[in-house]
C-alpha cells in the first residue's frame, strides 16, 4: 500500500531497505568466507594450487611431446590465460548451483532474502578469483614466464564478462536445481567437455572453419579469446564475438533472477 505514503517517506523506505540489504550482504560475505575457507587452513591455498597444477601439467605434457607454444613464447602464459578463465567460470557455476538449497536455514531470519545469499557468494568468488588471477600472473612475471599485459583494461573486461556469464549460468541452474535435484548432474556433464572446447590449449583462429563454426557457440571460448586479446599485443582473435558472449551472459542473468522471483513462493522463501 504505497499509495497513501508521502514521497519523501517513500524515499526513506527505499533507503532503509537498501541499507538493510547492504548490511545483510556484508554479513553473509563474512559468513561465507568462514564457511567456504575457514574449516581448513589450506582453503585459500587450494584456490591457487588448482590452476597452478593444471598449468604445470599442461606445460609438462606439451614440452614432453616437443611442441612449441600455440601462441607467444610462453607455454605457461598461454595455458594460464585459458585455465584461469575457465576456472573462474566453473567456480561461479558450481558454487551458485546449490545456493537456494544449501541456505534454507538462513531464511529463518526474515531480513535475509534468497538473492542476498546469491549476491554475497558471487561477491566473495569474484574477489577471491581476482586476487588469485593477479597473484598468478605476477608469479608468472616473477619467473619470467610472462610479461606485463598489453591491454590491462581488456583483461578487466574479460574478467568481468566471464564473471557475469558464470553468475548468469549459476543463477539459472540454481533455480532449476531447486526444482529438479538431478539437474545438478546434467550441469556437471555439460561442463565436463569445456576444457576441450574452450580454446585452453589451442588458438581457435588457426582451426579449420568447419570446426570453428561449432566451437564459436561456446561462450566460454569467447571469454578466453577476450582474455588473450588483452594479454597479448597481437593475438588478434578472428573468432571473438564480444556482443555474442555479452548477450548470452545478460540473458542468462535475467533468466536466473527472473526465475528466482517467479519461483520464490514455491521454494518457501521470501
Amino acid at each position, binding site marked *: *500500500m504505497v499509495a497513501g505514503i508521502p514521497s519523501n517517506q517513500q524515499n526513506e523506505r527505499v533507503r532503509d531497505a537498501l*541499507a*538493510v540489504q547492504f*548490511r*545483510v550482504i*556484508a*554479513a553473509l560475505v*563474512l*559468513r561465507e568466507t*568462514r*564457511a567456504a575457507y*575457514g*574449516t581448513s587452513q589450506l582453503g585459500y591455498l587450494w584456490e591457487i594450487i588448482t590452476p597452478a597444477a593444471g598449468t604445470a601439467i599442461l606445460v609438462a605434457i606439451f614440452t614432453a611431446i616437443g611442441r612449441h607454444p600455440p601462441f607467444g613464447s610462453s607455454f605457461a602464459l598461454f595455458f594460464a590465460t585459458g585455465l584461469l578463465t575457465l576456472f573462474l567460470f566453473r567456480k561461479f557455476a558450481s558454487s551458485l548451483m546449490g545456493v537456494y538449497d544449501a541456505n534454507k*536455514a*538462513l*531464511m*529463518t*531470519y*526474515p*531480513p*535475509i532474502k534468497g538473492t542476498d545469499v546469491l549476491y554475497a557468494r558471487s561477491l566473495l568468488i569474484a574477489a577471491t578469483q581476482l586476487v588469485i588471477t593477479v597473484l598468478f600472473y605476477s608469479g608468472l612475471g616473477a619467473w619470467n614466464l610472462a610479461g606485463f599485459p598489453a591491454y590491462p583494461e581488456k583483461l578487466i573486461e574479460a574478467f568481468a564478462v566471464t564473471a557475469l556469464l558464470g553468475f548468469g549460468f549459476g543463477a539459472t541452474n540454481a533455480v532449476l536445481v531447486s526444482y529438479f535435484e538431478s539437474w545438478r548432474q546434467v550441469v556437471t556433464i555439460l561442463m565436463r567437455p569445456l576444457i576441450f572446447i574452450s580454446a585452453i590449449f589451442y588458438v581457435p583462429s588457426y582451426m579449420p572453419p568447419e570446426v570453428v563454426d561449432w566451437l564459436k557457440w561456446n561462450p566460454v571460448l569467447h571469454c578466453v579469446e577476450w582474455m588473450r586479446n588483452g594479454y597479448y599485443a597481437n593475438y588478434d582473435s578472428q573468432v571473438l564475438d564480444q556482443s555474442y558472449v555479452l548477450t548470452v551472459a545478460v540473458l542468462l542473468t535475467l533468466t536466473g533472477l527472473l526465475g528466482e522471483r517467479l519461483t*520464490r*513462493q*514455491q521454494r*518457501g*522463501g*521470501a
Partner: protein
Amino acid sequence: MIELHDISKTYRVKGVKKPVIDRLSFTFPGDRNIAILGPNGAGKSTLMRMLAGAEEPDEGEIIRSVRVSWPLGFASGFNGSMTGVENIRFVARVYGVDAEAVIKYVQDFSELNESLRLPIKTYSSGMKARLAFGMSMAVDFDCYLIDEITAVGDQTFKKKSQAVFREKLPHSRIIMISHAMGQIRQYCDCGLLLTPQGVWYYNDVEDLIAAYEASNEDTKRVNAL
C-alpha cells in the same frame, strides 16, 4: 501493529495442493499478547513465518508497522560448523546491532560459558534453544514471535526466561504458539484458534482455551468413530 489483508497460502506437496490459510484478514492488536492455538497441521507455524516475513503469502498483503522478531522455534538458522559466538556475530550484523553487546548479553543469559566458543554441532538441542532464545532477547523487538520454545532448560533457566519476558512486556508484545496451556495463561490475554474449519478470534484467553479444548474433544470423538 501487524495487519493481514486477505492472505492465502497453499502448499504443494508432490503435486497435491494443500490450502493452509484461506483468505484471512486480521489485525493483531498492538497492546495485547496473542496466543495462536490449533491442532497440528492447522497452519500455526506457517502463519508465524508469514507474520515474521520469512515467507510470503500466495495472495494478500501483510503490513508490519513494528519491528518483528524472527520466529523463535525449533528450526534455527545456525551454521553447525560455526561457533556460538560466530553465529551471534552474524545475526547481530544482519539486524544492525552491536555484536559485542549481544555476545555479552547471551553470555550472561544463556549459561553456555565456554561452549559459546565451540561449533554449534557440538551443542545439545537444549543448548541450541538457549542460545537462540538469548540471541532474540538481546535484540530489541517490538514484537517477539515464539513458536513453542520457552520450555527449555532447568528450573533456574526457566525462571530467568520468565524474568526476561516480564522485563520486556511493558514495551514489547508476544505472539506465541504453544501446546502448554499454563504458558498461554501466563503470557497471553487473547488469541486465535486455527482449525481446518476456519479461524476464530477470542478476546479472552480463558474462552480461547475452552474453545481449543472443545475442538480437541471433537477431533478425538471423530477419530474414535
